[in-house]
C-alpha cells in the first residue's frame, strides 16, 4: 500500500451509484416515465458530484483508494485514484449526464427504454471504474465489462445494419480485449500485482519480453483507441448506435483506449523505459498516420455520423501522438485533448442526432439551408467544429497548443506538419457542413420539413439544453483553461508525476 493513500467511501460510491442506477433502470419497465427519469437523473447527478469531489480531493494532493474484494490470494480488486484517473472520471460522468438528458428527448419514442437506460448507466459505472482502477486486474475487469456490456447499446436499433455493426464491434473489441488480457497477465507474471503508480516494469527484464508486452498492450488498446489499421469498428458502430450513445462512444469509449495507452506508457513501463526501448517513435508514426489518414477519409463521408466517427479516429490519433512523443507538454496536451474532445465530439453528435430526429436527415448533402430551420443547432455545430479545428479561444486550441509546444520541445518538428495538417483537414471535413447549413438553398428534406409544420424545427428544450451545455463547456474549457480543477491544471499535475 502506498504511503499517504487514504481509504475513501467516495471512490467506490462513484462507481456503484451509476451501476445501481442502471440496475434500477433495468427493472423500470412498469414505472412511469417521470419516475424513471427522476431515478436516472438522480444517479447521474450524484455521480457527477461524487467524481467532482474525488477530483477536488485528488487535486489537493491526496491519493484516495478503496479495496473491494480479494479476487485471488494475491490480488485485490482495488480502486485507487490519481490525477489522471480523477480527471477521466469527471469528464466521463459530465458527458454521460449531458447524454442522458439528451436521451430523454431523443429516445422518447424509441423501443425498449429500460434496457437502453440500464446499459447506458451501467457503462458509466464501468468507465468510472476503469478511470479509478488501482491495479491492472481491476482495470481489466472494468475494461472488459465496459467493452462487452455496451454491445446492447450498439445494436439497440435492432436493424440488420445495427446487428452487422454490432458483430463487427464485438469482434474487434474482443480481439483487442484478449490482447490486453495477455499483456496484463504477462505484466503480472513479470512484475507481480502491484498498484498502478510507480512504473511496474523495469529494465531488469529481457528486452524482447518488454517489447512483446508493450506491443501486445498497444495492439489491444489500439483497437479501442482506433489507431489505423485497427479502427475498422468505429465508422460502422457510430452511425448504427442511437445518437446520445454515439456521443459517449466517441467522446469516452474510444478515448478509453488512449487512456489505456497512457497507463501503459506512464504507469506500466514509465517514460524512461519506453524511451530506452525506443518504441515511442514507432507509435508516433502510427499515430501521425492515423491523424492524416482518418481525416482524409472523413472528407469523403456523406453520412454525418460517419464523418464524425472518422473525425474521432483522427482526433484520437492526436492523443496517441501526444503520448508517444514522451514529452511533458505533449502529454499534457494529450490528456487535455481527451477531455476537450469528449465535449466537442459530444456536441457534434448531439447536433447529428437532432438532424436525424427533427429533419430526418443523415447525409451532409441534405443539410443545405438547415440553419433557417434550426438556427441554434447550426450555431452549436459551428462552434464545436471550430473548436475541433483548434480555433482560439475554444477548447481544441488549448490542447493543440500544448501538443505543438511538446512537438517543438522534443525536436521532432515535422510532426508540426501533422498537427496543423490534421487541423486543416478537420476544417475541410467539418466546415462544409456549416457552410451548407448557412449559405446554401434549403434542400428537399429541409423544405419538406418546412412544408409539414412550417417555421422552426428546433428541438425541444430537453435536447437543446445538453447541446448548449456541451458547447458552453467547449467555450469555457478554452477561455478559462488555466482555472483550477479544469483539465489543464489537473493534467499538468498528473504529468508532473509521470515525468518525475
Amino acid at each position, binding site marked *: 500500500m502506498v504511503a499517504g493513500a487514504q481509504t475513501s467511501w467516495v471512490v467506490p460510491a462513484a462507481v456503484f451509484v451509476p451501476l445501481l442506477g442502471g440496475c434500477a433502470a433495468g427493472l423500470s419497465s412498469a414505472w412511469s416515465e417521470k419516475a424513471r427519469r427522476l431515478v436516472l437523473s438522480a444517479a447521474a447527478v450524484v455521480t457527477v458530484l461524487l467524481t467532482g469531489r474525488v477530483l477536488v480531493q485528488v487535486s489537493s494532493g491526496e491519493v484516495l483508494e478503496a479495496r473491494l474484494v480479494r479476487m*485471488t490470494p494475491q490480488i485485490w480488486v482495488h480502486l485507487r485514484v490519481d490525477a489522471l484517473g480523477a480527471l477521466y472520471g469527471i469528464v466521463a460522468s459530465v458527458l454521460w449526464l449531458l447524454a442522458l438528458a439528451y436521451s430523454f428527448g431523443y429516445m422518447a419514442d424509441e423501443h425498449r427504454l429500460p434496457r437502453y437506460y440500464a446499459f447506458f448507466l451501467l457503462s458509466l459505472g464501468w468507465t468510472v471504474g476503469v478511470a479509478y482502477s488501482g491495479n491492472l486486474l481491476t482495470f481489466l475487469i472494468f475494461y472488459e465489462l465496459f467493452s462487452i456490456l455496451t454491445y446492447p447499446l450498439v445494436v439497440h436499433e435492432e436493424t440488420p445494419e445495427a446487428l452487422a455493426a454490432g458483430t463487427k464491434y464485438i469482434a474487434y473489441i474482443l480481439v483487442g480485449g484478449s490482447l490486453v488480457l*495477455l499483456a496484463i497477465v504477462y505484466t503480472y507474471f513479470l512484475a507481480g500485482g502491484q498498484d498502478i503508480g510507480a512504473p511496474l516494469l523495469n529494465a531488469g527484464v529481457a528486452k524482447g519480453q518488454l517489447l512483446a508486452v508493450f506491443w501486445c498492450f498497444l495492439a489491444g488498446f489500439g483497437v479501442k483507441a482506433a489507431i489505423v489499421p485497427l479502427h475498422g469498428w468505429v465508422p460502422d458502430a457510430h452511425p448504427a448506435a442511437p445518437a446520445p450513445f454515439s456521443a459517449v462512444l466517441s467522446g469516452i469509449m474510444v478515448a478509453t483506449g488512449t487512456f489505456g495507452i497512457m497507463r501503459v506508457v506512464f504507469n506500466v513501463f514509465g517514460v524512461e523505459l519506453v524511451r530506452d526501448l525506443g518504441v515511442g517513435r514507432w507509435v508516433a508514426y502510427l499515430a501521425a498516420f492515423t491523424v492524416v489518414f482518418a481525416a482524409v477519409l472523413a472528407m469523403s463521408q456523406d453520412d454525418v455520423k460517419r464523418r464524425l466517427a472518422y473525425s474521432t479516429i483522427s482526433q484520437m490519433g492526436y492523443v496517441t501522438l501526444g503520448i508517444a512523443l514522451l514529452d511533458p507538454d505533449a502529454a499534457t496536451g494529450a490528456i487535455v485533448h481527451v477531455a476537450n474532445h469528449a465535449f466537442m465530439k459530444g456536441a457534434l453528435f448531439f447536433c447529428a442526432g437532432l438532424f436525424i430526429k427533427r429533419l430526418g436527415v443523415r447525409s451532409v448533402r441534405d443539410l443545405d439551408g438547415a440553419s433557417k430551420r434550426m438556427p441554434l443547432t447550426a450555431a452549436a455545430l459551428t462552434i464545436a467544429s471550430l473548436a475541433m479545428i483548434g480555433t482560439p479561444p475554444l477548447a481544441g486550441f488549448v490542447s493543440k497548443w500544448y501538443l505543438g509546444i511538446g512537438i517543438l520541445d522534443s525536436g521532432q518538428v515535422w510532426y508540426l506538419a501533422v498537427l496543423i495538417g490534421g487541423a486543416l483537414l478537420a476544417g475541410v471535413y467539418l466546415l462544409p457542413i456549416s457552410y451548407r447549413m448557412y449559405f446554401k438553398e434549403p434542400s428537399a428534406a429541409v423544405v419538406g420539413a418546412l412544408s409539414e409544420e412550417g417555421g422552426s424545427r428546433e428541438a425541444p428544450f430537453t435536447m437543446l439544453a445538453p447541446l448548449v451545455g456541451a458547447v458552453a463547456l467547449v467555450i469555457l474549457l478554452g477561455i478559462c483553461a488555466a482555472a483550477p480543477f479544469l483539465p489543464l491544471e489537473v493534467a499538468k499535475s498528473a504529468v508532473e508525476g509521470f515525468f518525475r
Partner: protein
Amino acid sequence: MWWQWAHWLPLAVLVPLGFGVTTPAVAGGDGGRAWRWAVLGSALAAATTLALVVRVAREGPFSYAFGGWNPPYGIEFRFDEVGAFAFVVASLGMLAIVFSGRYAEHALDPARIPYFYTLLLLDIAGLIGFSVTGDLFNMYVFMEIISLSSYALVAVSGERTAEMAAFKYLVLGAVSSLLVLFGIGMVYGTTGTLNLADAARRLGGVGSAVPVAVAIALMAAGFMVKSALFPLHVWLPDAHAIAPSPVSAVLSGLVVKVGLLGTFRLYQVVYRTGIVDLAALDQLFLWLGAISIVMGAFFAIFQDDIKMMLAYSTISNIGYIVMGFGLASKFALIGAAVHIFNHAIIKSALFLAAGAIIHQTGYRRLSELRGAGRGMPLTAAALSVGAVSIVGIPPTAGFLCKWYIALGAFEAGRAAFGFALVFGALFIFVYYIRMVNAFYFQEPVHADVVHAGDPPLSMLVPVWVLAGLCLAMGLAGKIPLTFITPAISRLLAPIGG
C-alpha cells in the same frame, strides 16, 4: 466438532446410494414422491460432503479405513482438497434433481420417473465415491457405476435418437473403461498393491519403467476418452445434447470430469516417483488441450441446436483443463483444478437454463428461439450470465481459469499456449453472441416463444442459484484458489519433501 465425526466420509457415498436404491420402493409409482425422496437424499449428501470440505479445509487431507483395516490391506477412502469435487457433485446434483421435478413430469414416461431418480442418485453416489476413494480398484468400480448410470440416463427418454446416442456413448465408454482397467492391472502387477498412496511409494522401487509407462499411457488414454478430449470426443455431443437437460447438466458438468479427476489421481501416484519421465505426456496434453479448445469452439459455431452448442463448448473447456495439466506449472495446475469446479457450475447453469427454455417453449434451435429474451427474461438473463462466465469475461468464474492458466503458460515458458487459450475463448464468444442476438435482438419467429413466460420456481431457483454462483465464484475467487493450493503444492513438492 460436528465435522470431525469420522463416518461422514463413508456416509457421503452411502447416503445417495441408499436413497437411490430405495427410491422406486418409496415412490410406489408416484413421481412426486420419488422427487421429494431424491431431493432429500441429495440434500443429505450435500450436507455430508460439506462436513468433509470443512474438515479438509481445517485439518488437511484425512483417511477412513473400512472396518478398521488400515491401508494398504483394507479399503481406504481418502479425502483431499481435490476430492472436494464431491461437494460440488452433491450440490449440483441436488440442484439438478430439484430442477428435474417439473421437467421430468413433462419429458418422461411417468412409469420411468422413479427409476430416473434412482439413476441420478446412483450417478451422484458414483461420482462422490470416485472423488473420495483411496484405491485403484474402487476407483474403477465407481467409474463403472457412473458410466452405467450415465448410459441409462442418456437413453431414459426412450426415443430412438436417444438410444443411438446412448449406444455410441456405451461403446466408447466401455473401451475407455477397459483401457483404465488394463492400466490398473499393470500397476497392480508391478507394485502388488491397489492403494494409491502405497502404489506411489512402491513405484519408486520398481525395477523396469516400461510396464509403468504402459500403464500410465493406458490409463491416461482411457481417462481422456471419458473426458472427451479431442479427438476422443465423438460420443459427447450427441449424448449430452439428447439427454434430458438436468441429465445434460450432470453429464457435462460432472461426469466428464471423471477423466480429469482420474488423471489427477494418476499424477498423484506417479508424479513424484520419478520412475517415468512425464514430459512426453505433458506435451501431448498440451497440444491436445489446445486443439480441443479450438476445435470444440469451431464445431460449436456451426450448431443451431442450443444444447449441441453447449455440448461442444464442454469439449473446449475440457481442453483448457487438460492444457493446464500439460503445462504442469503451479499456476496452470491451480487454474486447471479450480476450473474443474467452476466449469461444473457454469455448465450446469447453462444446461439448466437451456433446459428451462426448451421446457417452456418446446423449441431447441436458435433460429426458432428468437425473442426468448422477451418471453423468459429471467431465464434468458441467467443463460447470458452463464455465457459471459464460460467465455471468461472478468470478473466471472470462468475468468479465473483463463488468468491462472495463461499465467501458468508464461511460467512454464510456453507463451504461445497462453495465446491459444485466450484466442480460443474468442471463438467461443462467437457462438454466444449468436445466442444473445437471437434471444434479444432479432425478430421473433414464433409468437409462443415471446409469450412463453418464465418457468416455475422449482426450475428458476436452481438456474439462478447457479448463475449467481457463476458471478460469485469469480469475485470470491480467493476462496477456491486458496482451498486448492495445498493439493497442488503437495503434488509439485520436490521428491522427499
